[in-house]
């Protein structure tokens, strides 16, 4: 049995001097350095966010002006999808299904977990890299392959998946080839997340610096830690389900095909005996923890930025950590609140609505703690802080509007209406994406050695905040009026929907204007790489360990092995020389 070696980590001297220079491909493309991989994930995620945004902008034309030919772009998309520039219903379905899939699995998660997690976590815990650098690289390329598969699916006969991002059976089983590609793409993406998750957990447990105990972690590290557990344990059932749906589609099995299925007036000749609800259970068993995967990293980012820009420790750090862990655990036992309309009995419904109500508590604790953290702070309203503070009410609206959905009775008129769309977009769009934007502005100096331009950032912020609300607030109204989601004409065919149809125009113009306001951000992002204000190691006067590394950090991250001497948010400590005492300073 080997003797345990002294726990002090070896000095992580910058190794570029010792190793021979890697070629271009090993250094920038097939790199095992967590920073390069983090940037790869981030750029990929941002590009897919943009693509998913474009899909949505197309949809919004149809929703605002059903049946009206789309000028210019309409003719580019071909007769098969937009004859005469007007959108076919099946193309609308394609856009809807792929918008959801791409935003969730190829946009937000790669950016929030793959991007921010990979880049920041090792730096924040004082590690030289992730525990398994080669596995990390494999995870990214698995994501890349998944992304290519998803993009490629647009070009197969019949187009991309059209059965919703939820791919409910039996519709998805009888759907065209694009659905098979969706399933294969998902298998790549799930594999990427699984491998990444085990890397994060191992890294956080094993590679943290000396003195960095769990309760001294920056909240961001805790958030990524819990998120990784969710990914690790919740994704496999969807992988199993994906394999089963693939077999139904390709091998003629009947896992999800019931007996006596009639399609277009013709009875299917398959054996049947399957259960469409089985797919829903397996899907939502992942997809509910998935929504916490979408929000937790964002909460982590917001926590860091609020502590830093209020020059105060976070209020209720311990309660926030316990809430995080509790949310993670509870997220596994609420999934069927997505299935209240499937005919479950009152007992099942009672169970799931109870767990759903309970899970709202830790979320509220975290949000409240963040809000209270502002009290008495010396607030700096830089761009990251603007986005972080805006996150709070936006997530608040999203979270509160989720409550009626979690109650069985209240869900009945709201299920699958625009109310649901408004609810989840509030949490993810002006919620998580604002947090991610905040994170980009905040950690950009660490990654590049330059700050992004503040004026452009503020324009980006104000425009985004107004437009996000313009898009999604009306959807509550439309949803309460009873308009279903996934209608290609936004309800134009229904008499009861007529009074609220005009709100679609508001949402659409909000969306197109939101796109305009991303231009300052995109410009800023690239321009600042060369022309941004140069900064040193710690431009934000922050306390966490990543700010002790050079900007940008070299291979190996730290010149001297960092050590944690205190908690992560020692701001405004009475008697200290400056208004912050870094975690890493002796």
């Amino acid at each position, binding site marked *: *049995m*080997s003797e*345990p*070696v*002294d*726990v002090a*980590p*070896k000095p*992580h001297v910058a*190794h570029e001097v010792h*190793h021979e220079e890697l070629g271009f491909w090993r250094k920038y493309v097939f790199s095992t350095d967590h920073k390069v991989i983090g940037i790869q994930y981030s750029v990929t995620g941002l590009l897919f966010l943009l693509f998913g945004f474009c899909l949505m902008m197309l949809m919004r034309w149809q929703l605002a002006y059903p049946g009206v030919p789309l000028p210019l772009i309409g003719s580019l998309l071909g007769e098969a999808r937009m004859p005469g520039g007007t959108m076919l219903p099946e193309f609308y379905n394609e856009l809807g299904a792929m918008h959801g899939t791409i935003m969730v699995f190829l946009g937000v998660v790669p950016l929030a977990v793959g991007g921010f997690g990979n880049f920041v976590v090792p730096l924040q815990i004082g590690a*030289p*890299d*992730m*525990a*398994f*650098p080669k596995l990390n690289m494999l995870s990214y390329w698995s994501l890349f392959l998944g992304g290519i598969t998803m993009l490629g699916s647009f070009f197969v006969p019949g187009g991309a998946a059209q059965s919703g991002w939820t791919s409910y059976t039996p519709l998805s089983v009888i759907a065209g080839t694009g659905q098979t590609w969706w399933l294969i793409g998902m298998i790549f993406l799930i594999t990427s997340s*699984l491998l990444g*998750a*085990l*890397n994060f*957990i*191992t890294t956080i*447990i*094993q*590679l943290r610096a000396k003195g960095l105990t769990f309760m001294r972690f920056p909240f961001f590290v805790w958030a990524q830690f819990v998120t990784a557990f969710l990914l*690790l*344990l*919740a*994704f*496999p*059932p969807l*992988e*199993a*389900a994906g*394999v*089963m749906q693939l*077999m139904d589609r390709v*091998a*003629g*099995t*009947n*896992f999800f095909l019931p007996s006596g299925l009639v399609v277009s007036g013709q009875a299917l000749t*398959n*054996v049947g*005996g*399957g*259960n469409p609800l*089985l797919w829903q*259970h*397996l899907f939502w*068993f992942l997809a509910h923890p998935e929504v916490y995967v979408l929000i937790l990293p964002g909460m982590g980012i917001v926590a860091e930025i609020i502590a830093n820009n209020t020059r105060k420790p976070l209020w209720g750090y311990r309660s926030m950590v316990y809430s995080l862990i509790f949310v993670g655990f509870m997220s596994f036992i609420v999934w069927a609140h997505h299935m209240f309309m499937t005919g479950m009995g009152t007992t099942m419904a009672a169970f799931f609505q109870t767990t759903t109500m309970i899970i709202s508590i830790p979320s509220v604790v975290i949000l409240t703690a963040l809000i209270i953290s502002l009290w008495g702070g010396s607030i700096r309203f830089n761009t990251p802080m603007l986005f972080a503070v805006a996150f709070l009410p936006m997530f608040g609206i999203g979270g509160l509007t989720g409550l009626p959905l979690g109650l069985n009775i209240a869900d009945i008129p709201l299920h699958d209406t625009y109310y649901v769309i408004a609810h989840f977009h509030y949490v993810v769009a002006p919620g998580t994406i604002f947090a991610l934007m905040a994170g980009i502005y905040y950690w950009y100096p660490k990654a590049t050695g330059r700050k992004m331009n503040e004026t452009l950032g503020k324009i980006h912020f104000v425009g985004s905040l107004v437009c996000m609300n313009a898009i999604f607030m009306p959807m509550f109204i439309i949803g309460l009026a009873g308009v279903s989601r996934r209608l290609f004409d936004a309800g134009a065919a229904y008499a009861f929907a007529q009074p609220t149809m005009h709100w679609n125009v508001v949402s659409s113009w909000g969306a197109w204007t939101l796109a305009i306001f991303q231009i300052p951000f995109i410009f800023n992002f690239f321009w600042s790489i060369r022309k941004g204000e140069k900064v040193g190691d710690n431009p934000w006067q922050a306390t966490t360990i990543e700010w002790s590394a050079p900007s940008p950090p070299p*291979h*190996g991250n730290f010149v001297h092995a960092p050590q944690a001497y205190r908690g992560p948010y020692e701001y405004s400590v009475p008697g200290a020389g400056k208004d912050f005492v870094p975690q890493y300073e002796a």
Partner: protein
Amino acid sequence: MDIPYTVEVRRDTGLTNGKIGIWLFLASEVMLFGALFASYILIRVGAPSWPRGDTILDVWLATFNTIVLISSSVTMVMAWASLMRHRFETFRIYMGATILFGLVFLIVKYFEYSHHIHLGEVPSTNNFLAIYYTLTGLHMLHVFGGMMVNAYFWGPGAKLWKTNPQWFTNRVEHSGLFWHFVDLVWIFLFPTLYLL
């Protein structure tokens, strides 16, 4: 650069990175097979009729396979134990045996599958066969994957023994943990599919 705790344990956790990594991976695998077992239960409970495993499947062949896999788990432990005792040649013998047992398992499964396919019993025939093929097929892929890793450690990967015997021993242990898991899944699969 060197990632710490790849070979030596971290004192406050008592673990190496690889040890945690493999256990986490096994946790995710439990969820994967768990989901399939759960699906099996749901489909079977909802089915108007369900054949008893032994009416369609060959129990004796599967019993033989069970003994083969359990034996391979024993030889796997012996392989790792040999490394702990710095007996490299003995390691090779036991690891070779483990790989061979795995190969026997796969060959038996091949005959089992071809027999069924010959009789027209394919995944699309009924849900029992569908879940049987899916569960055993996925398991088979895991056996194959484990064998590939073991073969690597028996063959080209064995070079690591000379340069870093501690690391090599650890890696074989992790592979062994995976192999035990694969064996454990079979021990659940066998009664569920063949006997119930």
